[in-house]
């Protein structure tokens, strides 16, 4: 199994150096890879159908509990057969479809990467490993959507698709990690065992929500569906493979995989039924309004994904059987329709339904494939689609009593629309008279028209012998989703009952709808008023708002002015300090411990305040400088009063020096312009006063703390006895910490030398800058 996953990854890596050899017709050779994988996987069918699950495990990142654990059960086998089977046909088809394209090698590289990642998703037994592959499918889809890169549209839709699925991806990652940390394991097998722990955990709703967002974005459920029609800008083989048959089903696979872990609760069922139900009806109705062939297919695909979500939501055994069967049915007929559309597009260079007609005369085998697929999608008896439609109705009818009626109505409504949409895509282009301009249209290479025909015939084969599919594929898949072994008896004839009646009514109503719903581009204008509230439009607007906000914010907050940065930072620092003081407890001042205030100190403080006032109000730089120096000297005096002459000396020197330096540069400064208006002055003064107040409060707090005086006591005690000095500070400087002082002097001397050499330095005129 390891080989199954890695072979594609390695092949895509090898395209980087060796790609140039595959740009020619040899490109088709690469299809051998999916074909081999398909054959390899086929041989597991007998083993898996007995209900056995195969495991393989390789150590990968044991320290993070991420191991390369693989499991092959019914569910993964079903999906991996779809991936490799349809993949083989797509590889062959693309070699003709993109013949002569200059980046054919890149295309195959992305496609191999995609196939391998998809296989990785379905075979993983470790949810983080699953996620790794999950994201890789998004990336390869991004490159494939953008492959027709000459249009701005296709670039935009590539990045839309990636953003939506990427967002879902990160939510999914969060959900998976959370699930893992609740259960203590990332292994799917063990998670199933601890399902009840997870379901009863208080965080279960959050896990569920995160996983759902991941699944819904990937499987294009409302309101995240809008990326899928956009993604149809990709080359048609890509649309057929990624955006219809496989990648978009990854979300469905995820839901199916997690049914035994998270499923069965009412939160699970109702969310899925509501979201899936709404999506299927909404998209089915939408598909009727489209005239672009691929748009019809895109919306009917969304609708089909809605049906699958809806069925998994119902969650009964019948519903699960219906879901699995419908997955296969849909993959077969929708891929066929996409491929026939691709041929029509390739040969006639249009996909406009109102122009296409009569093509059966020139593209007969394509007509057969398209018709079979359309009939299968419509649920015509003897085709596989009929079986799945029966199963769906059976599931809705047998669901909970009070819901059965509504669910059935929803399902019928959706299916009626889908019948019409299917006919429109598969039959309409071939009916009627052949317009003159298409008379020269001819059948493309065999490698293009045989793949859709094979798929369509498979639909017929399974329709004739549904029991085979039921026993070998559907039953094991459903078994791996439920607790006990399930036997799905798929049969063509159920007898006359409500289900059959519903099927026939659906077919009839759908055909009538098809006949009366003529493709016409004017129909789309009917939807215009609704566009305002469509999720796509809302997202667009939100994003635009976000970018505007971002521009506004950047211009306001990052205006490049240092002073505005400092202001903001000080405000934040104030907020933090205020928070800290707030939770730091009460503040009190112990007046008994303070010395009385003398008249000198009072006068000094008054001078200080006057100097501050002068500094902030003056309009002359020189006065401001003088004012600050007055503040400095007033503080010096404070030190003197409290018998700290050394500090006073230092402060005095520094202050004088600063003033002198200031006066030096004063002449070189531009003239002083007062740009501040009253508002700014008030704002600044509030910020400044708050900052000062906060720091004062901190200073008062410092007073409350008993000081640790052991060090000063040590020096006081030994200054005289050990060093024979009476001035303690001097003794510390020259004796106790004499070495420090010496090195300080050395540093100062070196600095002085530097200054001296700078002064002496005579620059050459060329170096003066």
């Amino acid at each position, binding site marked *: 199994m390891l080989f199954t996953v890695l072979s594609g990854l390695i092949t895509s890596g090898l395209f*980087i150096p060796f790609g140039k050899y595959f740009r020619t017709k040899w490109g088709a050779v690469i299809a051998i890879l999916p074909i081999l994988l398909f054959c390899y996987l086929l041989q597991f069918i007998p083993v898996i159908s007995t209900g056995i699950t195969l495991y393989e495990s390789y150590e*990968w*990142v*044991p*320290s*993070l509990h991420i191991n390369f654990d693989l499991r092959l059960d019914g569910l993964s086998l079903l999906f991996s057969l779809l991936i490799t089977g349809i993949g083989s046909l797509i590889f062959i088809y693309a070699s003709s479809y993109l013949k002569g394209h200059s980046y054919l090698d890149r295309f195959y590289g992305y496609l191999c990467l995609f196939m391998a990642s998809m296989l990785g998703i379905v075979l993983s037994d470790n949810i983080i490993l699953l*996620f*790794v592959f999950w*994201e*890789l499918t998004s*990336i390869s889809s*991004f*490159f494939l959507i*953008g492959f027709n*890169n*000459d249009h701005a549209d*296709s*670039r935009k839709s*590539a*990045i839309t698709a*990636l*953003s939506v699925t*990427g*967002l879902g991806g*990160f*939510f999914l*990652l*969060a959900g998976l*990690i*959370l699930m*893992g*940390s609740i259960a203590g394991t990332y292994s799917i097998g063990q998670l199933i065992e601890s399902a009840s722990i997870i379901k009863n955990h208080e965080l279960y709703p959050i896990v569920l929500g995160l996983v759902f967002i991941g699944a819904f974005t990937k499987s294009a459920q409302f309101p995240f569906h809008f990326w899928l029609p956009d993604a149809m800008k990709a080359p048609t083989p890509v649309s057929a493979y990624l955006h219809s048959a496989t990648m978009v089903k990854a979300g469905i696979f995820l839901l199916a995989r997690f049914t035994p872990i998270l499923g069965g609760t009412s939160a699970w069922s109702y969310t899925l039924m509501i979201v899936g139900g709404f999506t299927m009806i909404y998209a089915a109705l939408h598909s009727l309004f489209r005239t672009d062939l691929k748009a019809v297919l895109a919306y009917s695909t969304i609708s089909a994904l809605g049906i699958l979500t809806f069925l998994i939501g119902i969650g009964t055994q019948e519903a699960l059987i219906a879901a699995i069967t419908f997955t296969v049915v849909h993959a077969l007929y929708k891929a066929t329709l996409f491929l026939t559309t691709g041929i029509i597009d390739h040969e006639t260079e249009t996909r406009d339904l109102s122009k296409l007609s009569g093509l059966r005369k020139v593209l007969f085998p394509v007509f057969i494939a398209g018709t079979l697929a359309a009939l299968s999608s419509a649920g015509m008896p003897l085709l596989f689609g009929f079986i799945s439609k029966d199963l769906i109705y059976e599931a809705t009818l047998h669901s909970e009593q009070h819901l059965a009626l509504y669910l059935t109505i929803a399902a019928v409504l959706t299916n009626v629309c889908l019948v019409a949409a299917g006919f429109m895509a598969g039959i309409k282009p071939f009916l009627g008279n052949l317009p003159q301009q298409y008379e020269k249209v001819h059948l493309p290479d065999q490698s293009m028209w045989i793949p859709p025909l094979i798929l369509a015939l498979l639909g017929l084969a399974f329709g004739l012998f549904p029991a085979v599919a039921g026993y070998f594929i559907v039953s094991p898949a459903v078994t791996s989703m439920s607790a006990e072994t399930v036997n799905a008896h798929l049969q063509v004839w159920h007898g006359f009952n409500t289900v059959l009646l519903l099927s026939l009514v659906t077919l009839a109503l759908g055909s009538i709808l098809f006949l009366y719903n003529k493709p016409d581009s004017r129909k789309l204008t009917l939807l215009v008023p609704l566009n305002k509230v469509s999720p796509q439009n809302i997202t667009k607007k939100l994003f635009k708002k*976000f*970018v505007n*906000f*971002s*521009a506004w*914010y*950047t211009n306001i*907050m*990052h205006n490049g002015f240092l002073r505005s*940065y*400092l202001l*903001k*930072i000080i405000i*934040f*620092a104030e907020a*933090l*300090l205020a*928070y*800290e003081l707030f*939770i730091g*407890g009460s503040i009190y001042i112990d007046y008994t411990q303070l010395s009385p205030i003398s008249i000198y100190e009072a006068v000094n403080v008054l001078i200080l305040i006057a100097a501050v006032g002068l500094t902030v109000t003056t309009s002359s730089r020189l006065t401001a400088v003088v004012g600050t120096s007055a503040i400095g000297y007033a503080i010096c005096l404070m030190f003197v009063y409290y018998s700290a002459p050394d500090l006073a000396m230092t402060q005095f020197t520094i202050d004088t020096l600063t003033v002198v330096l200031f006066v030096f540069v004063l002449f070189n400064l531009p003239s002083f312009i007062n740009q501040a208006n009253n508002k700014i002055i008030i704002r600044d003064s509030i910020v400044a006063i708050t900052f000062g107040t906060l720091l004062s409060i*901190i200073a008062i*707090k*410092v007073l*409350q*703390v008993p000081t*640790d005086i052991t060090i000063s006591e040590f020096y006081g005690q030994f200054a005289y006895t050990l060093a024979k000095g009476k001035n303690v500070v001097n003794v510390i400087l020259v004796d106790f910490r004499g070495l420090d002082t010496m090195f300080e002097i050395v540093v100062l001397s070196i600095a002085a030398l530097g200054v001296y050499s700078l002064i002496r330095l005579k620059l050459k005129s060329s170096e003066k*800058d």
Partner: protein
Amino acid sequence: MSALITITILALLLLYLGLFKAKKALLPVALIGLMVALVLSLMEWDSNAAPIFSNMMLYDRFAVAFSGITIFLTILIIALSKDYFERISSNVAEYYALILFSLAGIILMVSYHNLSMLFIGIEIMSVSLYILAGIKKRDFASNEAALKYFLMGAFSTGILLFGVTLIYGASGSFDLEGIKQYILKDPTAVSPLLYTGITLLIVGLSFKVGAAPFHFWVPDVYEGSPSLISAYMSTVVKVAGFAAFLRLIMFSFAPLQDFWIPMIIGMSVLSLLIGNVTAVYQQHFKRMLAYSSISHVGYMLFAIIALNGSSDNAVFVYAAAYSVATIIAFGVLILLQGQVGNDSFDSFNGLARKNPFLALTLTIAMLSLAGIPLTAGFIGKFMMFSKALSSYHIFLVVFAALNAMIGIFYYFKVIVAMYFKEEDRKELIVPVYFKLVLGFSALVTIALGVYPDFIASLI
């Protein structure tokens, strides 16, 4: 320890080489010297390290890992400097020496065991950087960047020192172990001064790592400085700042979690939001990198919010992934600025056709920065997410997921330009040194993404 000595001697040696006009030898000597330092530092890998130099420093696994990664990143950046400084001035020895001096400061910052060493380390690093930011003397942007960086840096250093003083006032110790013992004695009754001290210290260090709301200097300085220096600042310096931050909190302040966690959560949320909101709007690659680097700090703060024994490793992985990818981005940026003279997103148009190698490496870097699996960036994001979720900070992670999506949007702008937009352009000439560094970094990014096991439980 020998790494620190080697780097300091190497810096002096380079100054002498400059003095004797041996310009050709500068780059090779610097690279070889740094490799020696790297090997020497890795040889000190020891789980039972004890503090040295009167408990001033502790060269434990944490210190070895972070000095290893910073030296490694410096090697990559210096290799990109081939012919870079020569365009600015003919006297280039000083530039190499300054980078190495700042690296010496950084080694101190990641291996301190005493707050005074932290301060000295930060200053040695910062003072060199103030000069380096302004080495383009005739370029106004470079001058402005240097001045802004200097003023903001001085401001933050003041705050930092204030914090250190208050902590000393409360605990009577500069020693990390001493402070820890003081707190452990009775965590409920520590002096209120300590809280103020921690707050100020956190503010000061947030300045250095560029966490919002103390990030204002980041975009202006990164944009104005010469690109090579910006690369150094946004990788090596950021990693070092974060290591210093983490070491302080892990060592000493862990028991007071309830106090500082709300603060860090606030900073993390703000960093994520501001980094992404401002990055989306940018039309130039360098500014985008500058703004988005703020958001990466937001992710890294997760490890501090959910502090436990493996936080250091999570930060290490994230920082390594982020830095290696950023170096690739800056490498391409330097080529583009030198040969096209413009770094708007449009100047990347059609790069994949003319320079497939550059486009591939840059794509790998962008994927890694966006956190896409099979690149190192994913492992980093995974570890951060799982850290935050292990202590059930769910809304933080949901918020981060939203931001990661925005990140995808602007990182992929570059990929779209390179691969999907066609334009006739000249092929960029890629010197051998650049090929080596970019190729090697891309390989490291992929290798860590594919096989992260040995780095995931390193420390």
